[in-house]
């Protein structure tokens, strides 16, 4: 039975990828590797552990930052929480709806205009029975300040404009669990401040924010708790200032090879 005081509970999350699948990705590779080593057909070549025993809970109103070097497992955790990945080990209890925005999801339909993209994304992310979708779209257009660019195909947008468009929509209505994976990087400081205010308002409505960034000031601006991730494990869980100190300390003292 889950504890309802938490919106999100992550218990013993483990995720491993079979290495052979990544090494052998074409029929040619498969043919050559089988010829070289026929026994490889019948035995596993080991696996890469992306996540190891991840445990944490999130209470209403918490703004949790995920910090770590590239490949540490931050986005993988986000994708597990948002339901894109179904990890074979562990359990994720979500006591509410999840809305996630990843950096790579910004330019989804490049041939469509900003307005059309908003319509498609709104239909996917919002329930028409619960939300007034046309109103959300209009409000998002206004918030994004894209004005006349809103009817231009988004392939002509800069990264910052794409960010404004997506974030305006995704942050229009409170979500129980809002995941923002490296989406602030590229926004100008004025819009970031505007967005940070909006996210603070969202949090007031009992949401949890999972926030991934490599920028210290973004983490300090948004988060009240930071998890330091290293090689798929949580090695620190605490205040953002302390987590940043631990991050510096850890990676200033380890060699590149270890990272």
């Amino acid at each position, binding site marked *: 039975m889950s504890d309802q005081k938490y919106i999100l509970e992550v218990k013993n999350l483990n995720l491993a990828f079979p290495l052979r*699948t990544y090494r052998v*990705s074409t029929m040619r590779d498969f043919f050559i590797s089988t010829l070289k080593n026929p026994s490889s057909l019948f035995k596993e070549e080991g696996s890469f552990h992306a996540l190891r025993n991840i445990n944490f809970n999130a209470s209403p109103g918490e703004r949790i930052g995920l910090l770590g070097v590239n490949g540490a497992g931050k986005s993988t955790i986000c994708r597990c929480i948002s339901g894109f990945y179904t990890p074979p080990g562990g359990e994720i209890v979500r006591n509410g709806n999840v809305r996630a925005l990843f950096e790579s999801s910004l330019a989804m339909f490049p041939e469509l205009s900003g307005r059309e993209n908003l319509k498609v994304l709104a239909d996917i992310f919002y329930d028409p029975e619960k939300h007034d979708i046309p109103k959300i779209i209009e409000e998002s257009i206004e918030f994004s300040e894209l004005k006349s660019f809103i009817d231009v195909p988004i392939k002509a947008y800069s990264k910052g404009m794409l960010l404004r468009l997506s974030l305006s929509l995704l942050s229009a209505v409170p979500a129980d669990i809002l995941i923002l994976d490296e989406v602030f990087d590229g926004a100008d400081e004025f819009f970031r401040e505007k967005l940070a205010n909006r996210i603070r308002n969202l949090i007031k409505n009992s949401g949890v924010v999972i926030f991934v960034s490599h920028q210290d000031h973004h983490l300090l601006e948004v988060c009240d708790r930071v998890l330091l991730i290293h090689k798929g494990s949580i090695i620190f869980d605490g205040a953002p200032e302390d987590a940043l100190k631990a991050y510096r300390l850890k990676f200033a003292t380890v060699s590149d090879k270890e990272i």
Partner: protein
Amino acid sequence: MNPILTYAVQVFAFTTIFQVRFPHYAVYLLAGLFPWMFIVQSVDMCTGIFVNSGSIIKNIPIPPLLLVYVQVLDNFINFFCAFLLIVIYNVVFKSLNYMSMFYIFIPTVSLLLATTSMSIFFSLLNVRFRDLKFVVSFVFSLLFYMTPIFYSIDLVPENFKKFIGNNPLYFLLKPFQQILLSESSEFFLKSIVQSFSVSIFFMILALLCWKKMRKMLVFYV
């Protein structure tokens, strides 16, 4: 326009240049070529769809198979509109049996199911073997000549007839050829059973593949 132009060029090449003496050759070609083009275009466009749409599968909460359904449906609308247009032309101007129009829907269902299943199967397999799309494209181009589309099965020498006549893709096309050439209902019924058997086979194949890869798909795209 693509299927109509391809059809027009082939009719011109075979009836005017090669001067094929085959009764209702244009109708026969239509019955095989259009469904064939629908299969080939759908499989070709769908094979790489999961790999090419990796960012959508990883970032937008939509069922991945929807991508395949949309692509096949898009091709199907193309195919069906063009096909109906030519069939209506033949009914009006070439006195084709109009009753045959009603039966066309039966093999069309089977064709749609088989094509969707094949598209799902190859698109999933392509996630594991990224060069599969080249192989699929090559094999289908060979199969075009090994399937009675622009020639009749009756013209195939006896010792090859069993091999060419049992091509599973031919089973999908055969009912169309029989309907448009108004062959007897006994042959038609047998062809429909064969056609749906092929559909069911590909559906099972796609279902097994989907069951095996469903959870891992997002990791590999």
